[in-house]
């Protein structure tokens, strides 16, 4: 059922969410990389992420063009995400008798944002056939994290410190289960994280992190149940190398990787054409419906009804490389431009069973995918792309513009 695949390709391009586990970088000078110990105070940061997504990864790791061959070349989902971050560094336990904590600064961070995403017209038109809107704007989810720095150690020219934290994502972002695109995710996550910062010869900074993202369930999956309901946990890892050319100019190279632990599950699949019954002469040739069905003299129209599941995918995975430059302005501001390019990945796809019927609501009592329903006369299997952050894996590059500002500069 390629017509359903076509649709889901578009849906697979929902906003590339940019979680709290953002790629590391220079916060501001002096010597203040993402995971380095910083002077006590409050820091603010704004990040704008722009992407034109026209490719996604399928479950075999192949790159699939958006909507091809049913949508002309050039179709895309355009996304913009503005993130606002506030970082507090201090020591609540300073000068108290609390062991360890009194000697190690703590930090907390809040990250909120606003997202914009819009499909190009051909993709949007496909979506409308399934009752979907063409775009989505609104608040993103809220991230809150707290943690503490470990001690600093020095080995010759190498200086090193660690960091422990846990991030909570609260799903307050815009989310409409009937919408084609959503800024929010509608499920909570908690992400324990280990990180380190190392500085070598005063010029090379290395930030690295390893995190385990525990994903909660989504009881209202988006767009016909093509976003997973039971979401696999993720492992995230990244490393970033920053080279200091001068006190004002930096450049970095990074690599990040994430992989789901096990499959995602889809329990509420209901995606279907909005207007039914369907006429074979208008759909068969264009959408590749089987000839037996289309040529049947018994029907001049038919109904489709998906089986809700559960279905499971093969998990998701992505590897990305990045390159960026920084300019430090007035010792209190960092301007950064960074390009991120996916180099490999795996998206979520599931094989959904559709009953083909002569009447609406045709599936009978057999809802367990074990055979044709009582009132159905055929079955078709459609391979659908999962949608949303938990399932879709963009294969398109994105541009990140970052503005780090320190209210109280050193």
């Amino acid at each position: 059922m390629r017509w359903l695949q076509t649709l889901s390709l578009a849906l697979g391009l929902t906003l590339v969410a940019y979680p709290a586990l953002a790629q590391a970088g220079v916060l501001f000078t002096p010597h203040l990389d993402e995971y380095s110990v910083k002077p006590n105070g409050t820091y603010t940061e704004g990040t704008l992420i722009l992407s034109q997504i026209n490719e996604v990864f399928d479950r075999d790791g192949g790159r699939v063009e958006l909507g091809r061959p049913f949508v002309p070349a050039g179709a895309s989902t355009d996304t913009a995400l503005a993130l606002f971050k506030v970082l507090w560094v201090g020591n609540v336990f300073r000068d108290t008798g609390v062991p360890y904590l009194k000697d190690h600064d703590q930090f907390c961070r809040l990250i909120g944002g606003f997202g914009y995403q819009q499909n190009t017209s051909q993709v949007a038109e496909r979506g409308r056939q399934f009752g979907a809107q063409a775009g989505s704007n609104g608040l993103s989810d809220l991230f809150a994290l707290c943690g503490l720095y470990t001690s600093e150690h020095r080995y010759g020219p190498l200086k090193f410190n660690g960091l422990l934290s846990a991030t909570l994502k609260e799903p307050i972002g815009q989310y409409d289960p009937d919408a084609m695109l959503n800024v929010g995710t509608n499920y909570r996550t908690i992400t324990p994280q280990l990180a380190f910062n190392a500085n070598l010869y005063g010029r090379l900074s290395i930030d690295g992190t390893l995190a385990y993202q525990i994903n909660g369930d989504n009881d209202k999956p988006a767009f016909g149940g093509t976003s997973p309901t039971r979401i696999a946990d993720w492992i995230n890892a990244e490393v970033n190398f920053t080279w200091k050319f001068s006190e004002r100019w930096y450049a970095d190279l990074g690599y990040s990787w994430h992989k789901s632990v096990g499959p995602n599950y889809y329990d509420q699949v209901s995606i279907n054409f909005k207007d039914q019954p369907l006429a074979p002469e208008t759909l068969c040739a264009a959408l590749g419906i089987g000839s037996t069905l289309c040529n049947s003299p018994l029907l001049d129209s038919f109904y489709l009804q998906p089986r809700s599941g559960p279905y499971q995918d093969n998990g998701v995975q992505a590897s990305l490389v990045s390159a960026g430059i920084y300019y430090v302005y007035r010792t209190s501001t960092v301007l950064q431009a960074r390009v991120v390019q996916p180099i490999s990945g795996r998206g979520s796809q599931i094989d959904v069973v559709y009953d083909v019927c002569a009447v609406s609501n045709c599936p009978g009592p057999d809802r367990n995918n074990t055979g044709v329903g009582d009132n159905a006369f055929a079955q078709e299997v459609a391979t659908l792309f999962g949608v949303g952050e938990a399932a879709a894996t963009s294969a398109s590059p994105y541009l990140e513009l970052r503005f780090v500002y320190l209210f109280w500069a050193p």
Partner: protein
Amino acid sequence: MSRSRFVALLLLPLLAACLPARETLLPRLGMTVPGLHDFPADFRPPLSAETGQPMPGFGSDQASGVYRTPVIFVHGNTVSARYWLPTRDYFLHQGYSRDELWAFGYGWDNVRYFDSNELSVPSLERSVNSVINYLSKKRGVPVRQVDIVAHSLGVTVVRQWLKQTNSYHRVRNFVGIAGANHGTWTASSDSRGQQRLTAWELAPGSPWLAQLNRGGETPGPTRYFMLYDGGGWADVFYPKPSQDSPALEGARNLAYNREHGAWFDHMDLPRRPETLQPVLAFLSEVHEPLPRASPPQLLREGEQLRSDQPDARLYCADDGLEPGAAVVPAQVWPLKPGRVSSCYAAHAGSGLASPLARYAGAEGYQPAGELSLSASPAGGVYEQPQQVRLTASDPAAFIVYTTSGTSPDSGSPLYRPEHPLYVAAPLRLQAVAITPDGRRSPPLVLDYDISLEKVEAAHTLERQLDPEVPEPYAGRRKKGR
């Protein structure tokens, strides 16, 4: 309850506890903010001139004694006395007693409010006085000198304090680590906001630094040791080509990283055993002052200066130059007509010295009536730094001044007409003119209020819309921005 919801519930209280600054929240709840107060019960720490609160810190205990010149550690910006705890541990391990190791948190201890040199000088004066008074009382004989180890902003704070309070004779050794003696790029002219005062002071080539360094960078009997990176990479405050900014002419300068192939950064330099070893060696090079000796005094006999102790020597310089250990000592110093000599007497045997003092040659001098002193611009509230010109009614008189709140004496900084006084902070300027025959003008006392609060009050949105709206400024000065 799902596991993520459960963990979230655990995390939220921690988040709620951390976000409001502890120093802000606890006082509002009527609770005392925990602080480092490692002082004996009978020692009352002095008040910080900036915060108005007793300074946190450490020093002394009931059991130990004073066997060496006490060391006072002076921290840099955005940190406090606790910064020196690893250094104190090292000194204790090397045989110092707790009575001999002191530190005070003079500032805000946060990047929210920056400390500045000018505003920190009164706190340092109180700190040194409190240590000397406490230990003198405890020991039963006067403690006349201290050693000072300072870091970063503390280095220029100490140097300004030495100059403004004429305290060279009270400091036997001064170790400055990574201080912006010739400026730092982070205080460049485009720096803004809360670091405005510090930026005016420590920008490379600033009038404030020129004022601090004028006449000699290592004046007085104090021994100077400057330790710093020197490589241009490890200490981000002093990149090339300013890697030698912390060095002082006339001091023993050690570019530690450059000379030892090390990579200690700005915060490491004063706290590593490797770098503290030469610091300790420097402090130990000179013998301890004789406990019951008296410092020599300068005597003027006509147009000559000498000391009241025959074995003492005079260290003098003319025309605005400050004498230091590098000048050729003399037993007698002749005063020259129309010139101002700056001198101190030092006794090598006792290890003590007199305060710096200035004298003008009086030969041929004719008094020019009543002596008075005036300033332009007058004291007041200003948004930007001011170049203040001082004028004495008698052109033969020389002018000395202070900006530290202390009354000027003849050894206070010398005003030079060709270099107007640079005022870049909310401070009290006190000046006095002294004629060659020793007469003094009535003291001129002027308050200059230059702060970000003033700027903010003058440029509120309301006032931009309607300039007639009164300026909501009452000279708060509190934050020292």
